[in-house]
């Protein structure tokens, strides 16, 4: 910290990201509530623990290697250059700056902001596969997406130097693809191998409804996810930086907030667009689902996710309509895929995150066609083809394919799916049975005292 202005900027930036991390924690609280509410009573403790334990597993692996990947892989490697070993060295788990170090005060906070995105990516997958995946298998998949595949996509397409930004003009300011697209694709890859819950489809292929055991928990959970999403949006920005700090083509002395690509935006813009896209999603989802609470709340989320790729630049009314379009497509696609391919996505995660994220990237390519993707020279401008290819990379190449392969391996080892007898009796059967016996013992003891 050279002078008071430097010190103030550093402390403000540290605190800014720190607050976003606390807000983003609510995403995970929301996902846990939502997922447990959507499961049947005989499975809810296993469902809760499945989601909860991804927190420590993704956290430690993100410390071991995930964070390093982000800094080492922006060139592919071998697409626009090799591994960035020198630049990434400070982010190895052995680096002094990855610990208590008075010469670097911000790395831990910045690491945590990315880590919370990792939890979110894994948590999105968690909901889709409830009530029949083995927890051990899910946690391996959670580490895969949380500490490997999503952070590779971030290095490629969510970094000022990513090869997708340079060559394709890829733009995804608030993570339509880099979080939601990849998580939806990953969920679909697992679901294809895992199969539907027993009894989910009738012999003629008609889907049966598995009613959530607590719809209020589901809706409050989704409300909490909205709340945490505010932190997510703020965390995607650099809160304040000078043109000198950017070192690109921007002239003058005006400090600004920027996206992760160091392109200018404002906190006001993303506040307008967050709320207008939430509203667009809610309005369309209410109508298309005929007032179904689960889909209306999910539609709010799908709306934000669709508009997120370009919410740094859209007009709020554009954000609202884009959100509505994405939500409508996500809803229709969910039921079409369910009927056609017998995919049992228990919470609609593939639709709300995957299809909406994919559509959002494509729409962004048309809406922001010709906008610069970077403040630096030599980068492609934003364009529809680059965004479409980016959506394919996020959803299929880094989402669906690795998940499908890992699930196949786990399935081949007999580790993916819960045995049918256990699935039918319920994952919590033993616990519930023992608890009931314990209650009965107490009642008998009390009766003996009368």
């Amino acid at each position, binding site marked *: 910290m050279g002078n008071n202005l430097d010190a103030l900027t550093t402390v403000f930036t540290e605190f800014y990201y720190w607050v976003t991390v606390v807000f983003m924690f609510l995403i995970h609280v929301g996902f846990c509530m939502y997922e447990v509410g959507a499961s049947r009573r005989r499975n809810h403790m296993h469902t809760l623990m499945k989601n909860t334990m991804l927190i420590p597993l993704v956290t430690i692996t993100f410390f071991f290697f995930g964070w390093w990947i982000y800094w080492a892989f922006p060139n592919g490697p071998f697409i626009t250059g090799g591994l960035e070993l020198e630049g990434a060295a400070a982010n190895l788990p052995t680096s002094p700056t990855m610990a208590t170090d008075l010469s670097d005060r911000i790395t831990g906070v910045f690491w945590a902001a990315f880590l919370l995105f990792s939890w979110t990516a894994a948590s999105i997958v968690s909901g889709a596969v409830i009530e029949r995946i083995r*927890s051990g298998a899910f946690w391996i998949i959670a580490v895969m997406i949380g500490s490997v595949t999503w952070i590779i996509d971030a290095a490629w397409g969510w970094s000022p130097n990513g090869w997708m930004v340079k060559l394709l003009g890829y733009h995804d300011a608030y993570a339509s693809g880099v979080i939601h697209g990849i998580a939806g694709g990953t969920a679909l890859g697992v679901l294809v191998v895992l199969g539907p819950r027993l009894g989910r489809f009738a012999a003629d292929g008609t889907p049966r409804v598995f009613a959530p055991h607590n719809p209020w928990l589901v809706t409050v959970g989704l409300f909490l996810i909205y709340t945490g999403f505010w932190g997510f949006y703020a965390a995607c920005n650099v809160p304040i930086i000078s043109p000198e700090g950017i070192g690109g083509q921007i002239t003058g002395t005006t400090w600004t907030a920027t996206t992760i690509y160091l392109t200018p935006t404002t906190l006001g813009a993303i506040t307008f667009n967050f709320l207008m896209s939430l509203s667009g999603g809610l309005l369309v989802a209410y109508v298309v689902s005929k007032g179904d609470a689960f889909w209306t709340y999910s539609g709010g989320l799908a709306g934000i996710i669709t508009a997120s790729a370009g919410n740094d630049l859209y007009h709020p009314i554009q954000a609202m309509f884009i959100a509505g379009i994405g939500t409508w497509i996500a809803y229709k696609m969910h039921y079409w895929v369910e009927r056609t391919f017998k995919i049992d996505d228990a919470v609609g995660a593939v639709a709300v995150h995957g299809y909406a994220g994919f559509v959002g990237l494509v729409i962004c390519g048309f809406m922001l066609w010709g906008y610069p993707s970077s403040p630096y020279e030599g980068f492609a401008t934003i364009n529809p083809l680059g965004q479409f290819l980016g959506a394919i990379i996020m959803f299929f190449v880094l989402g669906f394919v690795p998940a499908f392969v890992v699930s196949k391996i786990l399935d081949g080892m007999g580790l993916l799916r819960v045995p049918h007898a256990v699935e039918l009796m319920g994952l919590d059967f033993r616990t519930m049975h023992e608890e009931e016996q314990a209650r009965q013992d107490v009642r008998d003891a009390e009766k003996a005292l009368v």
Partner: protein
Amino acid sequence: MGSTWAVDLANVNAIYPWQGSEWIMVIVAVAAWILWHIIQLREEKEEFNKDIAEYGSKEAIRKALDEHVD
């Protein structure tokens, strides 16, 4: 790190204990992580086998489905 805070903080970098043994700590931690997965996968398999052995008959499962309606 020395034994006093009577220093100019501009000249201070890392202040955690066991500096220089970071690689050893990382190797131990990674091994612990992998071991955790191995133990968990074994325990989960044993738990399911036990559930099936005790409650896995058709009659027991039908009874369980009647008891836990949702």
